[in-house]
């Protein structure tokens, strides 16, 4: 995760909780491996061309007219930015 801003990186154990949330709860729709499901694929190749700021916004506020819900109740702005970095780099294997 060389591209990640070090200031964003959450400390453990929160970091592990966030990885589990992304894999398991985001994975309910996007697939445990982020290759897509009812929601679109979120592999690095799928999102490389997207604006990270917009991705952060969608995570926090959802997308109207689609099932994507807002996650701002569960994530701070900085954590959402870190989740974008995580997805752009690819989820760790475990």
């Amino acid at each position: 995760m060389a591209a990640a801003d070090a200031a964003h990186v959450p400390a453990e154990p929160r970091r592990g909780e966030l990885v589990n949330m992304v894999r398991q709860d985001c994975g309910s729709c996007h697939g445990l491996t982020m290759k897509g499901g009812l929601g679109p694929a979120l592999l690095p190749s799928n999102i490389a061309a997207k604006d990270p700021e917009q991705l952060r916004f969608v995570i926090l506020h959802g997308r109207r007219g689609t099932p994507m819900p807002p996650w701002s109740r569960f994530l701070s702005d900085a954590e959402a930015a870190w989740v974008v970095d995580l997805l752009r780099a690819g989820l760790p294997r475990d």
Partner: protein
Amino acid sequence: MRGTGDLGLIVERAAGRVKLVETTGRSELASIDGLGDLSHASLVYSRDGRYAYVFGRDGGLSKVDLLRASVERRVIQAGNSIGGAISQDGRLIAVANYEPGGVRIFDAATLEPLAEVSTGAKVVGITDASGNRFVFSLFEAGEIWIVDASVPRAPRVEKIRNVGKQPYDGFVTPDGRHYIAGLFGEDGLALVDLWNPEAGARRILAGYGRGAEPMPVYKMPHLRGWAVAGGLAVLPAIGRNEVLLVDTATWREAGRITVHGQPVFAIAQPGGRRVWVNFAFPDNDTVQVIDLPTRRIVKELKPGRAVLHMEFTARGEQVWISSRDDDAVIVYDPASFAELARIRAEKPSGIFLTSRAFMTGF
């Protein structure tokens, strides 16, 4: 030599593995590996209860032999799939795919591909129906399709259009007569009478939210296995902490019950008096038990973190509940709510007992 009637499989979603269990001694018998990406996996059983057909997110279709605890055959049949069904005669397996959108039909014995029905949309809520038919919904298209596979290589498709916005799942009632699709994009459900499909889909519970803004949905309800008991169907209210009761004679609302969170599954306890409900993130550490005659919640359990599924034995003396984030499956006595057993499992999701082999819609 042994029978398979007391066996079952538990999906370990992150490990690409299923655990073989038995419900007589409530123990684990074996682990079966090599099933690919099992996020959102489901399975159906052969009519003799020996084989399971496992549908993986990676498009894998695996035929698992319960007696040998091994994968007998496996094919990758699409890019991204969500579930499947077995035909009334047990000879065909239909797999519902997201990418590319459609249904593929396979020979249950050999997994040889027989036919493909392209839909151009994500397929959800696939089920079997009488006459070797398969019924499913199309998420983006808002349609319900009925595929008659009585000539397996030349399936006939009947399309019901404009059933409602964004059907997200569907199921067939236990008597096999009605197919119900839940709608994400609007308040209501679509009902098809399979005795009379040419009449199209009828909207039921339209406007159940009464104009109130729904809450965000952090996990879609699953309709397969939803409770139909005592003349009532218990259905999820999308984006609300409610289950809706529908009179199955008139298909009109018969009441609603406020519950702990947004319901994911509502499962009828055999006997039909009680319904067990689990919930979406972030309320997913709780299971509530509803008494239908009094319409009250008579018990609240905290089986563990991230409860994903509940499965009763056929006669209802045990209920098996998976807790994903505690890596455990807990077996309860539904009468006393006593814990009978606790089985370790890695990130368990679906629990599938072989009694499903004999039920339409499973």
